[in-house]
């Protein structure tokens, strides 16, 4: 008899064996391929069937303009009333804000009669700004008073830093100052114009030598969310405007090109007004125009709109809706991959080949996860890219997101499917029955997502479902984040998840790890 070949039971051998097992059952391969196909087909067909158009001059349908994007590549809202002049080189602006008022349109009491009440919405803004130009989406930094969030320094739409809280009144005015030195803009505030506190700095790379500097006011729509009759919620937004009263306005630095000296001096020509991003009605008049008035170094500026990242619109992850259907197929394969071993008694053969049971089950889970990821990643990427193109060519204003976010959404979706597969496999190993395990996996992953993102549950309950159940992993698909400085209906039904993307994905990963650990314990502790 010849001597035994020596060898070590390497983990890689167990991996290879499980891979051979998986690929040699035609039904499983076909189901995984179908899952990939479902992702692509559902994504592409839903994108192909989604058309949008906007009303052009005279009410004609025209293609919607592409969304305004900020320096960071995100879609932004850049709509405000700006009173500004040129600043060349270094310099700054100082102003004292003595009051901030506004009007909010409430639901009409008498039909046809506009019901405007006095008031300022929490994120109404009035303050000083330096901006690369008057083009929408151009770089800027601003120091401002807000309706209910005190003084803030913001720049380039997504960055927000808090100054002192509190309000503003003629008796307790707020002094605001913004100074430019090269690409660095520094914001200050003061209660008396003598003692200044630095709020923060912003670096605006590539800021041109001559920029626009001045005063602004804007006010986002008033959002009301009401509980729907059949669960879910209805969000409505109504017009508001805000007015800031400024005095002691001084502009220092290179304003010579304007024909003015130190900026306190006059030159009516020097100050210009722009209603940035104002909507022009089909008739040609400006919808909700802003306005400004000036007397010496005192200004009154009124505006409507917002300077903030845009969070509403067609999102980039929209073509990935097929992932949910694919998930069900992936669950079926994952469960069968392990329950078939029990059904046909193969588990004993498997344990004879790999008697270290924990390692054997881990190898199985790892192979399934990797195969699911590899099989679905190209499909998710294809649906994302092709679906996105179709949406745009059909006139949809898809909210642009940075490449890194696109990669995270695509890879994260494939990772979510892989984690769900591992969780389903672990449930299969625990329950040892296909039907029971498939139902359990669908109940913990698919059902919570469906409940939370359709108008069934109140927003609060939906958010808790998406924190506590493995469905939290869908957060990885959210391409547009929720910004604290933007009031919006950040509900699951609108595609906003309560957890950040990776934290969300960590939830199903945690469940998968727990279930797998329990399955290993059960496998170790019982006779096969």
């Amino acid at each position: 008899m010849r001597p035994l070949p020596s060898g070590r039971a390497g983990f890689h051998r167990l991996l290879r064996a499980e891979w051979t097992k998986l690929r040699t059952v035609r039904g499983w391969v076909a189901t995984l391929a179908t899952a990939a196909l479902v992702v692509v087909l559902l994504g592409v067909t839903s994108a192909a069937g989604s058309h949008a158009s906007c009303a052009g001059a005279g009410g004609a349908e025209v293609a919607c303009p592409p969304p305004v994007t900020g320096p960071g590549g995100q879609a932004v809202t850049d709509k405000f009333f700006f009173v500004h002049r040129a600043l060349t080189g270094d310099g700054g602006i100082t102003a004292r804000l003595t009051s901030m008022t506004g009007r909010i349109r409430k639901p009409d009491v008498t039909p046809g009669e506009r019901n405007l009440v006095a008031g300022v919405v929490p994120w109404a803004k009035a303050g000083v700004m330096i901006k690369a130009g008057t083009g929408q989406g151009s770089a800027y930094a601003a120091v401002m008073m807000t309706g209910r969030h005190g003084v803030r320094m913001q720049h380039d739409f997504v960055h927000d830093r808090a100054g002192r809280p509190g309000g503003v009144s003629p008796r307790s005015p707020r002094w605001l100052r913004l100074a430019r030195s090269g690409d660095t803009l520094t914001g200050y505030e003061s209660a008396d114009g003598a003692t200044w506190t630095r709020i923060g700095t912003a670096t605006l790379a590539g800021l041109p030598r001559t920029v626009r500097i001045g005063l602004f006011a804007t006010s986002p729509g008033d959002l009301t969310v009401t509980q729907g009759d059949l669960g879910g919620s209805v969000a409505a937004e109504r017009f508001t405007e805000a007015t800031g009263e400024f005095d002691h306005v001084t502009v220092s630095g290179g304003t010579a090109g304007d024909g003015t000296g130190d900026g306190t001096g006059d030159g009516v020509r020097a100050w210009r007004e722009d209603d940035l991003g104002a909507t022009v009605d089909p008739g040609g008049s400006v919808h909700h125009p802003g306005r400004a008035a000036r007397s010496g170094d005192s200004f009154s500026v009124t505006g409507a709109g917002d300077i903030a990242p845009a969070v509403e619109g067609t999102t980039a992850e929209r073509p990935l809706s097929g992932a949910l259907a694919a998930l069900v197929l992936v669950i079926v394969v994952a469960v069968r991959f392990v329950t078939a071993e029990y059904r046909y008694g193969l588990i004993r053969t498997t344990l004879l080949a790999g008697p270290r049971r924990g390692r054997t089950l881990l190898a199985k889970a790892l192979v399934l996860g990797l195969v699911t990821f590899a099989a679905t990643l190209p499909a998710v990427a294809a649906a994302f890219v092709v679906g996105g193109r179709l949406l745009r060519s059909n006139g949809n204003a898809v909210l642009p997101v940075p490449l890194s976010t696109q990669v995270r959404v695509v890879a994260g979706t494939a990772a979510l499917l892989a984690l769900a597969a591992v969780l389903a496999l672990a449930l299969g190993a625990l329950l040892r029955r296909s039907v029971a395990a498939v139902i359990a996996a669908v109940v913990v992953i698919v059902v919570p997502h469906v409940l939370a993102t359709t108008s069934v549950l109140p927003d609060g309950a939906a958010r808790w479902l998406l924190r506590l159940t493995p469905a939290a992993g869908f957060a990885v698909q959210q391409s547009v984040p929720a910004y604290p400085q933007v009031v919006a209906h950040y509900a699951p039904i609108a595609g906003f998840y309560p957890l950040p993307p990776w934290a969300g994905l960590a939830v199903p990963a945690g469940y998968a790890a727990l279930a797998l650990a329990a399955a290993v314990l059960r496998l170790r502790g019982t006779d096969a």
Partner: protein
Amino acid sequence: MHPTIEVTGLRKRFGRTLALDGMTFTVRPGQVTGFVGPNGAGKSTTMRVILGLDAPDEGRALIGGRPYAGLRTPLRQVGALLDAGALQPGRTARDHLLWLAHSQGLGGRRVDEVLEQVGLGPVARRRAGGFSLGMRQRLGIAAALLGDPPVLLLDEPVNGLDPEGIVWMRGLLRSLAAEGRAVLVSSHLMSELQDTADHLVVVGRGRVIADTGVAELIAAASRGRVTVRTPARAEAVPVLGRAGAAVATGDGDTLVVSGLPAERVVAVLNAGAVPFSEVAAYRVTLEQAYLDLTGGAAEYRGVAR
């Protein structure tokens, strides 16, 4: 590794049933050891314990001095056939062996070798779900042989085989033992082991009743009896009785004589002028020996150890 299986003091209880009650025996290399006993005697449980599938409440089972779970590439040390029906129906015979081979660092070539060896070469790429019981049994044997192991445990390997298959299996088992392997073959039918086993471990109610060589067992059960074929049975009985023998009537014209060796029987019959055509040592079948053994188990308990 010295190819042996050592089972020491295995005890295992399933609920209220005591499945193993101090099971102890050793399987040595170079011979086929038959593992026999009625259904429910604990054969399969013992095999599962040896293979690390079931945990005993007490005792231990070692293969080449190590527990199964401690074996690196276990299929290269131990080949086992437990349940030939344990197959994924959608997987081909070759793919079934291929994943096993991959788990042990073996490749497709070895798979093709064992498929030829068990005669499944022509159906290697057919789905195992369509296999007959005999084909499944051959595939199970192929899986056991895959790692060319020095120790083999086969649970009822002849089940479902046609007569040709049974002959093939016997030859295979004998040749595996002749190569120096330790081969443990369980069966609930003693007749299946008649021409195969060299050694027997007979079990009942979870313990070993006899652990003995096949030849010794048959000799012991035959108890030195002699058969006499004679046309004159009526005359032969008193003649032999006077010589001190106990005589029983056998089938047809035979008598079974005990208490006298064959030479004395011939001499007594000649002296008495009783005609006879044949005097031979009486050989019980293995099955009869086994029935003897399990019928009067107490007499034999511990005899061979």
